[in-house]
């Protein structure tokens, strides 16, 4: 399968902040996407679980799914009104990491373009799997919420361990965690997607919600 990432996203990851790169750079970007497509092995795994939201003693909300409990204000907002949640994990496999490492030997300018392109391609792959989940939910008469990942907002990164265990990520898609909870291969994403019987806000806000977007080199100025 060929992944066609949004070139604008790659440019944004490269820190261009709304400026259009010259033709040489655009060519370099396209070349990188082509090279990456030759080495990616996109894989995914997801599973749907029932979701309940409970009030804790301290008035906080507790989310229960897949046999685990999570306290997160931000995720509670995201999953408001949901009765179920999909856990998904995707990866592009070890190929992109090898290409980036290879370019890092003496050609860092290539390495950063490959890195940005691979990041954008991971998002593209996420979108494809997300769409598959959306369609599946639709068949059950359910609406999906924007996907949300461990490490966003106050959702702890330690949730990665649960993802890895519940989805059996090492075996299913070849993604394992380091002791410090980093995913290897690095071009991998885990996310939660809430489902509800009511349509809801499905717009994914990114930079607009982030406090540091003002001086962030990756800021998406088109959102402002």
């Amino acid at each position, binding site marked *: 399968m060929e992944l066609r990432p949004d070139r604008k996203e790659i440019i944004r990851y*490269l820190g261009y902040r709304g400026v259009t790169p010259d033709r040489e750079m655009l060519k370099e970007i396209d070349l990188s996407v082509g090279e990456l497509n030759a080495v990616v092995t996109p894989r995914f795994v997801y*599973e749907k679980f029932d979701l309940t939201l409970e009030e804790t003693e301290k008035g906080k909300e507790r989310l229960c799914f897949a*046999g685990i409990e999570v306290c997160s204000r931000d995720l509670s907002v995201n999953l408001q009104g949901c009765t179920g949640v999909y856990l998904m994990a995707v990866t592009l496999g070890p190929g992109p990491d090898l290409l980036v*490492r290879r370019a890092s*030997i003496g050609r860092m300018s290539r390495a950063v373009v490959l890195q940005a392109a691979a990041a954008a391609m991971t998002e593209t792959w996420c979108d494809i799997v997300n769409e598959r989940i959306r369609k599946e939910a639709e068949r059950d008469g359910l609406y999906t919420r924007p996907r949300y990942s461990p490490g966003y907002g106050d959702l702890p990164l330690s949730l990665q361990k649960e993802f890895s265990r519940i989805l059996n990520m090492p*075996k299913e898609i070849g993604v*394992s965690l380091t002791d410090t909870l980093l995913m290897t291969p690095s071009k991998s994403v885990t996310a939660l997607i809430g489902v509800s019987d009511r349509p809801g806000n499905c717009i994914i806000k990114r930079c607009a919600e982030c406090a540091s977007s003002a001086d962030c080199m990756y800021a998406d100025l088109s959102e402002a």
Partner: protein
Amino acid sequence: MKRDLMERLGKEWLLCDGGTGTILQSRGLKGGELPETWNLKRPEDIIDLHCGYLRAGCDIFNTNTFGANALKFPENLQEIVMAAVRLAQEARRRANREDAYIALDLGPTGKLLEPLGDLPFEKAVELFGEVVRYGSAAGADLVLIETMSDSYEAKAAVLAAKENCDLPVCITVTFDEKGKLLTGGSVDSTVALLEGLHVDALGVNCGLGPDQMIPIVKRLTEVCSVPIIVNPNAGLPRTEGGRTVFNVGPEEFSLRMEEIAAMGVHVVGGCCGTTPEHIRMTAERVKKLPFKEPVKKCRTVVTSFSQCVEIGGTPVIIGERINPTGKKKFKQALRDNDIEYILQEGLRQEDSGAHILDVNVGLPEIDEPAMMAAVVTKLQSVLALPLQIDTSDPAALERGMRLYNGKPIVNSVNGKKESIETVFPLVRKYGGVLVALVLDEEGIPSDADGRIRIARRIYEAADRYGVPREDILIDGLAMTISSDTRSALVTLETLRRVRDELHGHTILGVSNISFGLPRRAVINSYFLAMALQSGLSAAIMNPGNEEMMEAYRAYCALANLDPQCMRFIEAYAGTQDRKPAASASQALGTPPAAGSPAAAASGGTSAMGLAQSVERGMAESAAAAARVALTTTSPLELIDRELIPALDKVGKGFEAGTVFLPQLLMSAEAAKAAFDVVKESLQGQTQEVKGRIILATVKGDIHDIGKNIVKVMLENYGYEVLDLGKDVAPETIVDTALRENIRLVGLSALMTTTVVSMEQTIKLLHEKKPDTKTVVGGAVMTQEYADAIHADRYAKDAMATVHYAEEVFGKK
């Protein structure tokens, strides 16, 4: 009296058991509960599980230890494993099946090994080894490693089994529907690796149902010489009411397994979703089929973790450039531990068309085993070509072979008794294709008869040590014709006779033939063509040598080894033959090849100036401009007046937001190309270094792109960077700072989870070497964070780090 498993394996049908996890789930195992805990909590259920399979007719059944390792059971691993074997023994007794074999089941650790992940290879060997020691002591009959989807982890498990017990070792791996392991290995590469490690049987399990496994099984039967095991799932899984169910029932499964067994398989069973009924019906059908014993395939295969090179068909090229002999710069790189220089040499050869890379890092004053280990693992983290481990130091050879992910070429053994006794046991243990030099205690025979005699002796030694003959490459020894003009003919005759009389494969260090002569490339390329025509299977040479590559590609095209001449056309379409009429300069020296960028750039008068080339990030043009400028300007002047101002201009643009990261780096690379030219002209003179700086990505963090960007920029501005890499322990950083008396340390961390190690590093540095400054950066880093962990400076990007370095060392 129970018959030995090895007397039956590959001689008659044997049945494995089926799924464990799915059955335990049906008995109430909860999601997230570790199945191995039932060895202690619910022993009767485990005994029942085994009894079900034993009564169904399986001959080999697995202990409930798939996930048992010290990572998951740090407290009571021994108890869990010993109990598992005891329960299996009890089941065997109750089912009255004392003839059945207890397989100590080893599954993956769930961690990815270095360099892809963070589990060191030797740690993985230790984790598996511990389980093997407990399981074999408790009375298991064999070790069955299963569900491996990473060749490197598979190798660690096999070594652990072989080093910790004398039981038979079998292994099954999991391929996806394209026939690939999760880390990229193919059926061919996996079989070569595992047969090299001398497993007693190998095959596939899990991941796929019998239908999807058929193409993989077909390939296995074509390449595999040892008995083949096939344990599929009961089809593909789907979720039904929160439960995983499989779609192939016992009847259908047994029909498919009958088909698979008839393809030339030797052991069959099931995996996820299969039940005793699946196994019972399969046993019934399969045991009626005629049994075909495994057939030796006699293929000569060299592999990496993902690539596979077969020797004996189209001749292969082995790049010889990773070798310090006669290379001043390379020797210095080894002394300086400059592995990047060595990696670049590897990448260049891959780009030039090498199929395999020779790795020789021998230098008397360095720790060769450590260097071999570092270079082999680093090379395998940036390229997928198989490697040839080349050393005369047995310790370095063993380190390299042990850590190598794949089946390497080993260079070399010779006819001397001592060499045979040292090298063959290593090849027998780790697997490898072995280069055999036809010389012995008496020296190099001057005629082909003598060389063939030694070759025969080496083949006989291979038989004695249990190394397959096809894994020997006879090196016919090319000796320069400048001292004996018969020598090429002797070598060629040796090649022919190895092919025709011994039916073996050959290898040759081709370039030796012209030592001491002018225009060596001419002699080398003709000799290469003659050697290929005489049956040479593998040429050790410089793939950057155009004449030799031309000879190679032309030979392949002429010998009908290049279908439709596609590879020849791909290499040379659009290029032209060299002009017969030589210009004065061509007749005198070694001009750049016509049409090469260097020729175009240096020849043209309209070439861009140095500053402009750097600003526009054009490396070749910058190097050419520097060369021209040096004819009129002094090196130092060129640096101060042109290079540094151009870099500053780009740096300022970056800070102002008009130049972007890729451009900044391209300019840096252009500047580096120019600096390299300047350095050459300064040969002999010592160069000024503005300061020495340690850079490291901290412990636990494996993202190093940010650190590498900073490194490029600092080097550009004249600093020497001691790059300690990624996942670096605080102690390593502090010890290096103390030993090298370093004044500035740059640390990078990408995640909040790893900023902790950054803090620890700074704390330790403050204790042990308080005068050293620290600068920190990385995706999650902020000024507040930097203050909180007491860093001296937060750098938001590479230029900010450069500015801080100027502050610390004083801008000149």
